[in-house]
């Protein structure tokens, strides 16, 4: 009497939800066992981590504002990546495109930040970032449609070119290099003028909502509508499903690929502009790995725009929370979040398997006729 795996016909929504929530919980439990083994009370640790230390904290609103600052670039990047992934263009160059966007908006901020009115310089920053990132993404797309190169390798390599370009800017003390702080003898990025800062909206007595949050929500809604209802969105899903069918239907596949990748990379540039605009300074770690984490988020959410918000919120809580918790639990490094993130991804993929298959027991047949 053996067990074997059988394909499921369909899996009701509640069952799927249970499986995914179960996967996340299981990841937390496994993480808890690890915590126990190094002598940390997992319940205390998790309480601190998942609340990001906000309970009973006088400056909880600051924590939450910082949390949103982290969340916005991740959400926009994940949504942007999902756009390309939907077309089966494996853009893993989010990091590079983000950096190019950041450099472009830094360029605008440092060059004209003092001269132009704030709203104008912010808009130019966003546009410049989108153009720079979009064109940077277009390189890989162009090579793909022209020479059918592998976009995964191309975008990956372009990440390192972008990163080293940024490092070059950060280290090279020259007259032309206005990215650096002139007053400092040591090479160090210059801060933007106080007039280049993403504006905030005051809600209540203390809380200030950064305008980038609104931008992120807006991008989410627009991309959702774009993919679901527009002709261009329709073209993207047909190409993602079958390139043969798309060209057979008379679509200009090459142009659509170029267009979509540009759009995807440009949105990543927008995320970079938001990040730079709130930070007010460039840095070599400006991306905070959103180009990578965004890939995980997009896949956890199965490219579903709505769920991307949920998944990135969760991932951000893990990252921010583990940093907060690390200050009160010295044994646990803040990288614990990475481990938990990996566990969640693994187990959600496993849950995925169970939404499509189930385990069944083999029965013996009745021997009634032969």
């Amino acid at each position, binding site marked *: 009497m053996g067990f074997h795996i*059988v394909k499921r016909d369909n899996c009701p929504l509640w069952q799927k939800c249970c499986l995914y929530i179960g996967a996340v919980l299981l990841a937390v439990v496994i993480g808890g066992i690890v915590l126990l083994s190094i002598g940390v009370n997992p319940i205390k640790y998790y309480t601190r981590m998942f609340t990001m230390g906000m309970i009973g904290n006088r400056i909880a609103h600051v924590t939450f504002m910082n949390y949103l600052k982290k969340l916005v670039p991740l959400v926009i990047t994940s949504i942007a990546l999902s756009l390309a992934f939907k077309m089966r263009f494996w853009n893993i160059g989010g990091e590079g495109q983000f950096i190019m966007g950041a450099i472009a908006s830094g360029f605008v901020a440092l060059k004209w930040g003092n001269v132009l009115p704030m709203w104008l310089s912010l808009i130019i920053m966003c546009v410049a970032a989108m153009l720079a990132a979009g064109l940077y993404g277009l390189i890989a797309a162009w090579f793909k449609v022209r020479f059918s190169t592998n976009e995964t390798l191309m975008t990956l390599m372009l990440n390192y070119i972008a990163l080293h370009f940024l490092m070059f800017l950060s280290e090279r003390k020259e007259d032309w290099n206005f990215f650096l702080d002139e007053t400092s003898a040591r090479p160090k990025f210059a801060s933007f003028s106080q007039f280049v800062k993403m504006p905030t909206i005051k809600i209540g007595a203390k809380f200030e909502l950064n305008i980038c949050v609104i931008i992120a929500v807006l991008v989410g809604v627009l991309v959702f509508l774009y993919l679901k209802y527009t002709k261009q969105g329709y073209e993207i899903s047909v190409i993602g499903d079958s390139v043969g069918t798309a060209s057979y239907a008379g679509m200009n596949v090459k142009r659509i690929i170029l267009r979509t990748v540009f759009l995807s990379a440009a949105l990543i540039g927008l995320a970079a502009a938001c990040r730079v605009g709130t930070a007010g300074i460039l840095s070599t770690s400006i991306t905070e790995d959103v180009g990578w984490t965004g890939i995980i988020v997009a896949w956890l959410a199965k490219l579903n725009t709505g769920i991307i918000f949920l998944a990135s919120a969760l991932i951000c809580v893990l990252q921010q929370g583990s940093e907060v918790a690390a200050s009160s639990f010295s044994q646990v490094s803040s990288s614990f979040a990475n481990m938990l993130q990996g566990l969640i991804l693994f187990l959600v993929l496993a849950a995925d398997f169970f939404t499509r298959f189930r385990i069944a027991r083999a029965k*013996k047949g009745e*021997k009634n006729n032969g």
Partner: protein
Amino acid sequence: MANKQHMVQVQTENNENGQNYAIEMRGITKTFGSVVANKGVNLTVKSGEILALLGENGSGKTTLMNMLSGIYKPDEGSIFINGSEVSIDSPEDSKKYGIGMVHQHFKLVDVFSAADNIWMGRENPGFVLKNERHSAIEALASTFGFELDPRKKVYNMSVSEKQTLEIVKVLCYGAKIIILDEPTAVLTVQEIEKLFSVLRRMKEEGHAIIIITHKLNEVMDISDRVAILRKGEYITTVNTSETNEQELTEYMVGRKVDLNIDRPVVETTRPLLEVRDLCINNDEGATAIDNVSFYIRGGEILGVAGIAGCGQKELCEAIAGLRPIKSGQMIHKGDNIVGLSPKQILEKGISMSFVPEDRLGMGLAPSMSIVDNMLLKNYRDCKGPFVDRKSGRADAMQVIKDLEVVTPSADTPVRRLSGGNVQKVLLGREIKAGPNVIVTAYPVRGLDINSSYMIYDILNKQKTDGVGVLFVGEDLDVMMALCDKIMVLCHGKLMGVVHAHKTTKEELGLMMTGALDLKDKYEDKPAGIAKDTRFGEQEAKEA
């Protein structure tokens, strides 16, 4: 996995000679989700017997055989081999019990030679010199009357050579029970005859053979007994000598079916699509279509016959504008269509539907719903940036109703539909667009009798409406009954155009292999060039 090996000696019912059956399957049930692929199936094969397994598409033939070859495990039921109950957990187990399966899609390594493909899967290969291996294989092949060059690389082989290799492979592993899944689907008439004589030889040697096929004439020709499945259920087993095609069809379909294909006589128009001296390259840059000329009139079905892969796909793609042509001319109603984009050709009313081997590759987006697939060719027509799903839904409902598509809803992804319904959706959409030339390749590929006849009816309906149809087909019997004229290709060369009611299967078979060239049969009229051609009209227009 200790129980894997267990072989319980159970006394099974013996056949009349007092011998055990080579294979006995009892009460086999297998489900995939809520789909019941096999339900209480019983099957017996003796040694030295050819059993034909007959059933419509989706009746569970392949599933049943996959349980013998260790790919699936039955949910219920037991399998006996030579009288002892066995549990086949993997393809290795299956090999151990002497079962060999030749799959419909060959499982060979392209860059290996025939000998390497065979030796790769041997249980105890040992140290055998290459030459000895080659002579061992040659010796085995010749005992059964196969011709096989062990040194030849698979990518240089024709389809029939690949199939020979697959059969020799399972024989080499010592298989006593051989299962062939639709072996004749890709062969020419002559090759089929050769295969059958080899099968008879194997039968004389005492092998048990199970052959899956759709073609009733082959069943009558080769088998000793016929087992019939319908919708996963076991219907009966009959002796071939005591039955006929009509009866078998009734068992298979469950009701009386008229096996004749209509060929309505329709008044034809001047040529709608004319192709002259067309040369096309394939993906590798080799010549796929070599100097081919033909024409299609409105109100006629022109069949394209040829061995698989002799340029049919490239021809269809070139007409649809998906593949650049090397030289030659294509005119549609007097207008040149060479160099137009697929979209422009579509707008001229030329529809192409190609059903590839996996049945989903071209023409449909498998993960998208029927509604979205309906929109594929006309989503641009409405104004504004948004897709008009309302009209797509209406079209989808219409096609579902007209062509009796079986689907839970219009929002079901196309890949969840069964093969016949997928093809109905594809053809339905093409016809909906109101084309004047339909190019259709393998529209009944893998379909059961009912669905096939429905597709023939659809095509005939189009023909009577004055549409010109180019029908690329596989089954010569069908083509001879359905088409008005048949053009035959061999390695991309035109071998002639014949009238379907005047030709014979043998003649077509010879033309397909290149042994007979009827291109210049009539001195005054070369094949494929119409007397009332529209060539010249185009120049007149331009002047």
